[in-house]
């Protein structure tokens, strides 16, 4: 049994869902995503037991492309994130009725397939294929099942699609150039070994950066984000913000930094500064957002800025914190968007100005929402704190001012999140009836919260899982 099993399950699941018909689709999709989760847990056990669960097969002879899936701790952690979030996301959508739901859930599983592939692929071209493959389902999900005015939605989604695709093309160019240098091989080990001059590294680094900066997004490449988050159906938003963003961040660690370490070191300060600028900018913009989902989008911008800054520190702490924060942020942002969806289901609006006074009507929902809000502002005891603390610590080791500026996130974050919470949940009882969470919704919330709290106090399993592979990557970075 190796990692390709997960991919196979998800791919079969996608088709099975599509052919199972509209009524069964959601359940079949949930079943397959749970199977994928189970499979990844089994694989994790095997991995921890020292088994080799990677896979390398020759695929295309000329140019030399292999079907290489390499599962190290880092990749597995990301796969687990994806595998754990997918069922949660699918389950959270049970309260909604989607027309043509077989296609909808099929696309979700297909996207999970592509994203898992991205996390596992260790061949440049294979990775690129998965990377782009993940874009297609979300394009359709956002376009067909999104909300708001169809024309505006089309505009936003097409912008997103073309923008990210354009960025990725630079990455493809970089890969082709690299493979020329590596005697036609796209395998990651060979790419790591390529000796590049400083100038070459700079351009390669920049090409990768464009692709990732758009995907993550790092300012000023974020303009697609808020609109798409707002227009996409919440499930799509969750997939985007919970997992897909992490593809970019993961790729920074896996591909960009080790392949162009000299450039990474040379321009470290610039990229950290960009990340931190994102933190401050995102937080400030989030202060004055009227749409709940848009606000969360900007908060996400702020958080990923910090993660990116952490990755670019090139220290073990920075990378580790970044990965921890990726996972934590994945869960919390899914939870928050789900909360927005829960509100939308009842009030048919996400305008903050039209909300308020929900707390009296729904104590359970309020508590869960509040926990998520607090996790999002990295209260100690939640997983996000572990990540954020580690990242900020690593930044402080580079330059204390980075930590101070990046740390404004804990002030500004608290400001906009609590402001949002106050205007959405508190205040005089709303005249409209807000039913408290249903059992299904409650389970989704409970799973997310349980993960956040458990790893908030005991992040050791994840740290132990990712640390060896991060150390390996750091060795590659510091090799020359």
């Amino acid at each position, binding site marked *: 049994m190796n990692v390709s099993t997960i991919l196979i399950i998800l791919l079969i699941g996608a088709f099975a869902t599509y052919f199972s018909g509209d009524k069964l689709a959601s359940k079949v999709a949930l079943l397959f995503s749970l199977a994928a989760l189970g499979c990844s847990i089994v694989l994790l056990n095997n991995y921890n037991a020292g088994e080799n669960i990677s896979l390398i097969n020759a695929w295309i002879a000329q140019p030399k492309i292999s079907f290489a899936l390499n599962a190290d701790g880092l990749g597995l952690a990301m796969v687990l994130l994806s595998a754990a979030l997918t069922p949660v996301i699918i389950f959270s959508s049970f309260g909604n009725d989607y027309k043509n739901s077989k296609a909808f859930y099929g696309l979700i599983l297909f996207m999970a397939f592509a994203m898992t592939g991205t996390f596992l692929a260790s061949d440049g071209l294979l990775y690129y294929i998965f990377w782009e493959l993940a874009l297609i389902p979300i394009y359709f999900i956002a376009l067909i099942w999104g909300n708001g005015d169809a024309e505006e939605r089309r505009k936003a989604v097409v*912008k997103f699609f*073309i*923008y990210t695709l354009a960025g990725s093309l630079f990455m493809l160019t970089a890969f082709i150039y690299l493979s020329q240098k590596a005697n036609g091989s796209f395998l990651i080990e060979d790419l790591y070994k390529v000796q590049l001059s400083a100038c070459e590294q700079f351009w390669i680094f920049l090409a990768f950066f464009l692709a990732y900066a758009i995907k993550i997004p790092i300012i*000023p490449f*974020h*303009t*697609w984000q*808020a*609109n798409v988050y707002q227009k996409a159906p919440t499930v799509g938003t969750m997939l985007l913000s919970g997992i897909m963003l992490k593809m970019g961040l993961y790729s920074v660690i896996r591909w960009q930094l080790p392949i162009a370490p000299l450039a990474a070191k040379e321009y470290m300060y610039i990229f950290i500064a960009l990340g931190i600028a994102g933190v401050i*900018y995102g937080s*400030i*913009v*989030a*202060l*004055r*957002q009227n749409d709940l989902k848009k606000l969360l989008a900007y908060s996400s911008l702020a958080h990923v800025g910090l993660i990116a800054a952490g990755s670019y520190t090139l*220290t*073990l*702490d920075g990378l*580790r914190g970044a990965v921890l924060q990726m996972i934590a942020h994945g869960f919390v942002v899914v939870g928050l968007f789900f909360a927005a969806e829960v509100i939308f289901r009842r009030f048919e609006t996400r305008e903050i100005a039209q909300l308020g*006074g929900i*707390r*009296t009507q729904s*104590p359970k929902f309020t*508590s869960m929402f509040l926990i998520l809000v*607090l996790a999002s502002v990295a*209260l*100690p*005891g939640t997983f996000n704190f*572990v990540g954020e*603390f*580690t990242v*900020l*610590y690593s930044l*402080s*080791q580079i330059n*204390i001012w980075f*930590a*101070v500026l990046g*740390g*404004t996130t*804990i*002030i500004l974050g*608290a*400001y906009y999140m*609590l*402001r949002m919470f*106050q205007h959405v*949940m*508190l*205040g*005089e*009882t709303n005249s409209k009836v807000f039913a408290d969470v249903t059992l299904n919704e409650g389970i989704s919330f409970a799973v997310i919260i349980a993960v956040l709290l458990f790893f908030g*106090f*005991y*992040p*050791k399993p994840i*740290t132990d899982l990712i*640390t060896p592979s991060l150390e390996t990557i750091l060795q590659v970075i510091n090799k020359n």
Partner: protein
Amino acid sequence: MEMDTNLALLLVLTPFLGFLINVFFGKSLGKTVSGAIGTVAVAISFIVSVLLFNQITSTGKAIEVTLFDWIQISNLKINLGFLLDQLSVLWLLFVTGIGSLIHLYSISYMHDDENIHKFFSYLNLFIFFMITLVIGSNLLVLFIGWEGVGLCSYLLIGFWHKNQDYNDAAKKAFIMNRIGDLGLLIGIFLLGYYCNTLDYKLMYESIHYRATLSDESFTIIPLAALCLFIGACGKSAQIPLYTWLPDAMAGPTPVSALIHAATMVTAGIFMVTRLNFVFDLAHDVQNVIAIIGAITSLVAATIGLVQTDIKKVLAYSTVSQLGLMFLALGFGAYEVAVFHVITHAFFKACLFLGSGSVIHGLHGEQDMRKMGGLRKAMPITFWTMMISSLAISGVPFFSGFFSKDEILMTAFHHSIPLYVVGSVASIMTAFYMFRLMFLTFFKEFRGTEEQKHHLHESGSLITIPLIILAILATFGGLISLPGNSWLNEYLAPLFTKAAGEEHHLGTTEYTLMGVAVVGGLLGILIAYIKYFKQDNVPESDENITGVAKVLYNKYYVDEAYNAIFVQPINALSKFFRDYIETGLSALVFGLGKVTNKIAFQGRRLQSGSIGLYLFVFVLGMCAIISYIFLAQ
């Protein structure tokens, strides 16, 4: 060792258990039961604290408990562990002790509230976090508690969440605290960088080892101390981060008593005391602390002079008293600050609970201009509050006298100007406290007839805690009598300096004591003349003029902060949202548009004339053929 672990876990987890029970089953358990569970949970913690206290005093050795690894950072290893030494156990005692009294009080006070189970769950959660803060074995565990109590403070200030003003106050408290938290966090980073550990004990050793080397990186220490102090400023409401505390009075009165007077706001002092070995090495920062403490105490006292809301007066008095504690900390007199923390916890909790009893009796009226003459209706409340007021005013032989006197004495030995500032603040304290007493309890009742009709003494659940606290406020000073201080001896192992730096009582000391007493009595006298003899009642809001108006409006600090920080950030946010965001978006769309334009121009090339196409085609063919065959 096993025993200690269990004990520590029992200590921490009982309130947490209470929290869980109240959260999940509180509603179905009924009001009294849920209150009882909350109280019992804290009481158990209190009993455990007493046991631990006994153990510590008898063995004199700190108890260390390590649970498991928490966060791994390359050069730091952060455990989730507890350190129970003299300082933390002392704090535990009054946190859980006063905590259980206030829980008891709340059963009656909050009885009419439909969400009482939530109230108790939050209170329990608060106690849980406060205990974590106090007994954490390293700075990061302290930070859990630190932020956790901030959270509970947020929840409890905004407990009546239907009122958006209260929610604003809660939000403000949380954010102000977070500003301080950032400072604390940066301080933690710096210390972590310098010491390679965050564990108190190891940090102590490391700093002392490296201090002897006196290398250049030593400059980090003052910086770290300053950052830590910013954190303390946030939590303990010092200038410039004090404005949240008076607003925090929006919460129910027991909350004000527990969190915003007795326990949480002393966390800053706890932290500074805990890290005394860091602060001792940063003299400049210590001076800053002393100056800020003194200024805070004076500023808050002046504002307190004219406030009319009974809780606001107490709030400013708290800020002022905290300022005095920082004054002591600034001089390195940690044990003195701790002493004042304890006595202050007693009398301030009593005062708040008393005011709560008054408010309860008047059905929510907090304006002192509408009170008066409550002495007869509420004798127990009156007497307990009287005792506490005497204590806070520094009348001899009440607890406050000893602790405040020690602070002023320390100040006198270090810096005369700061001593003067502190003394003036103390006189003012005496004045406004008795202003409060006179306005509330003496003369005729100024409220409505209906309120007058319902005036009554509160129930025993309210009065018993009051009485206990009043007794403590009276005799609390005994733990550290001048010249024969049990507290100093008890705390001695914590401090690097020899504990023997006590002031032996000479003429100066007695003179100072006399001055303080006279000052206090002077304040009381002025209040007596103004509000008893002359029968003055503060003017209604619109008639206040001059200096009083500035004071009444708290020096317009809130407005200034609003204008300096909040508004610009909001304006910036608006600017970013409306211009930068649209600009960036337009830039991206612009790229698309440029492509479109180019394509549009390129379209003209496609004239549709087949003749031209063919002509160009032939030319191109010629070119290609020539290139392939001729260009060698």
